[in-house]
């Protein structure tokens, strides 16, 4: 994140950064812990992510979303796309391992969602490379 204006006091600086990072010439990255996300209902997770991304932030989830939450994230993202303001999201996670366990695997407590996930505005983030162990992304300023 870019350095705050030198004439800002601490409170003002915090408020300015809390909005969209647009007060400063930089990109804000929110790293959300699995613990924090666990406390939220599915739609609260989707809302938290989209609010951050629509503010121009990059959101990194320590643990990813469940497939059902991913489905809702796509659906809500589509409903919020505005041709003049918001073109959608770019999202990357490491590939899930073979999930052939299906329902049985889930019943046995297998956690398919524990995948670091990077989400950002589609017009600001571009995936350069992705494989099973590395996600490389280019983030541009507005």
């Amino acid at each position, binding site marked *: 994140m870019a350095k705050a204006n030198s004439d800002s006091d601490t409170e003002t600086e915090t408020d300015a950064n809390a909005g969209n990072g647009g007060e400063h010439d930089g990109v804000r990255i929110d790293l959300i812990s699995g613990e924090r996300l666990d406390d939220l209902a599915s739609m609260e997770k989707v809302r938290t992510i989209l609010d951050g991304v629509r503010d121009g932030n990059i959101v990194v989830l320590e643990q990813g979303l469940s*497939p*059902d939450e991913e489905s809702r994230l*796509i659906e809500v993202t*589509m409903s919020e796309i505005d041709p003049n303001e918001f073109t959608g999201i770019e999202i990357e996670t490491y590939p899930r391992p073979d999930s*052939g366990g*299906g329902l*049985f695997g889930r019943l046995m407590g297998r956690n*398919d969602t524990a995948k670091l996930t990077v989400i950002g505005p*589609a017009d600001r983030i571009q995936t350069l490379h992705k494989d099973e162990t590395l996600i490389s992304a280019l983030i541009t300023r507005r």
Partner: protein
Amino acid sequence: MGLLTGLKKSLTQLFSGGATQRRIGIYGPPNAGKTTLANRISRDWTGDAVGPESHIPHETRRARRKENVEIKRNGKSVTIDVVDTPGVTTKVDYAEFMEHDMEKDDAVRRSREATEGVAEAMHWLREDIDGVIYVLDSADDPFTQVNTMLIGIIESRDIPVLIFANKTDLEEASVTRIANAFPQHETVPLSALHGSNMDEVYDKIAEYFG
């Protein structure tokens, strides 16, 4: 097909008193050839098309259903509803449509319709689909986030899925690359445009969704 999927299908048929008519959703990224495939299946078995095809992304912006498609294989018949869905994506930018010689107003309207269509397709997947044909362009990289997410969503709902590696007529096509991307599922190569390998396509549809 998984044990639980087979069990669920058997129980459904038992309690419905015999063969059930299943809604099979054709899913995949934009421009994979979903509507071309839906039209090929529909024309082969009913004589009618499902919808218009185009090289411009998001030509299909509403889920379209062709009911009572009866597929006859090996002395048996399978009746399905084919649901052709808009290509799933996480972003839609009207500027991309303007690259296809579209005026801005038309491009904006098309992008709005496309976003509604994708949301609708996701809703269908959660609520109203009994089986999925996931169509991929064999010439494209299958290791995309949308493909990974969609297959994960389908698996999490325990819906039977077949992967169709379409456009095998293209020089750059690689069915192996697609099969390697989703080794947990059966991959069927085809060219919906030219109608190649359709016998195997119908055999697999009957086997998985009958």
